[in-house]
């Protein structure tokens, strides 16, 4: 079972050095224990571009699809047996990156 662990943040700024170090330790553990699928940090929402090609031609819009105070700062995709395992890992991830996270299962 795979879960998307989204990192939610509401201010500018990337991870500090200490946070990055804690994230690295956590990532190593995910790999070692077989929970690692993929992870990444994202650039600021202002760098986003939205494309809608459902109509005649592709519409390009500058900025994120949703203007909100909180935004997606990064994510993990983890492999876990069930939600209890995923929540435990997510709690550690939240501590490591020092940000709030959301856990959502893949279908």
């Amino acid at each position, binding site marked *: *079972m795979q879960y998307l662990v989204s990192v939610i943040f509401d201010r500018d700024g990337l991870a500090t050095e200490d946070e990055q170090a804690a994230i690295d330790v956590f990532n190593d553990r995910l790999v070692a224990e077989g929970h690692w699928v993929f992870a990444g940090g994202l650039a600021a929402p202002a760098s986003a571009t939205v494309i809608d090609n459902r109509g005649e031609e592709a519409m390009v819009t500058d900025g994120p699809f949703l203007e909100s105070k909180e935004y997606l700062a990064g994510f993990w995709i983890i492999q876990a*047996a*069930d939600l*209890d395992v995923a*929540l435990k890992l997510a709690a550690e991830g939240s501590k490591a990156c020092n940000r709030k996270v959301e856990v959502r*299962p893949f279908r």
Partner: protein
Amino acid sequence: MSVADVADAITQAHHEEWARVVASLTRRFGDLDVAEEAAAEAFATAVERWPADGVPPSPGAWLTTTANRKAIDRIRRENKRGGKHKEAQLLHDDDPPEPIGAIDDERLRLIFTCCHPALAIQTRVALTLRMVAGLTVPEIARAFLVPQTAMEQRITRAKAKIKAARIPYRVPSAEDLPARVSGVLAVLFLVFNEGYLATGPDTDPVRHDLTAEAIRLTRLIRALMPEDGEVAGLLALMLLTEARRTARVSASGELVTLGEQDRGAWDAALIAEGHRLVRERLAAGVAPGRYQILAAISAVHTSARDVHATDWSQVVALYDQLVRLDPSPIIALNRAIAVAELDGPEVALAAVDRLEHRLAGYHAYHVTRADLLRRLGRSQQSRAAYDKAIELAGNTAETAYLTRRRDQLK
């Protein structure tokens, strides 16, 4: 067997077997939805058949077999229609088969799944009442003054989340157990309190159906986890509170405070059982948790012949213990009420006033102030506090009591 006897047998089977049937089907088919529907169908079949065929010698086994058959019928029907991979959707349960023991009761798995912390507290309450207590959706909707369709949706969404997010169907590990048990007890206490101090302008002041259901479920958890002190504590607390239920509202529908209650009207059997549990926990010699201390406070109150004979120093000492465990302003408020009896209303009022910034929106804060100010002869301030309390109180009996008290002020 008369019609009434059969009806009683069905009610009894529903009380005793519903959770067991739902739990064992959930274990077998890995799907709460299938289990719930099949259990409901099995009970409907019993209502149809038992009056003619007679009550089977083992109603539980009959219901489980019937429900199993209904579940298999449904799964066959669905497989024929959609051919979806049922396996992939099974609730996750990776436990090896364990020896039969109290802790392995399937009903416990069901309770822990329904009370999972990833579900909203209102959802946990609704799901527990449906899956474990066997209340119907309309009954639960009525109990919480929610439209039936909204309650239906809440339960359906919860089942979908349990499945999609793979909320496990198992008793938590020993390491997680204390926190998870306390989550279950919080759900049961919420059901009890909603029954005991029902809110809403058109509701009965005491909803006996909810208090009775909460006690029944807590008894079940107690039977499954007899060693857990907090489970015993919560059961004792509920019994000692329930014992005073009929004395708590007057014939005219007004709240009667502890000091003014007719103690002869208290339920002696419930009090005796509650006291037994409190003594059992004292003898265990383990540091008590929140519910055990609350039960002990209730035991002190219910041991006194009248309000003056209450051992208030004991009550305050227990509150001191509770404050150390849970420094919430509500506990501090209740402690102040006991302090008023021990050290006088002036000392108590000073303690209550210190809580203003945290409790200004809580009706009991204003009720307590109004009473203390009244006892100190400060009528005008007391009246203002009663006004505020009446504005914030949601319980009909309490509003009636507060209004009379206010109007009696000189």
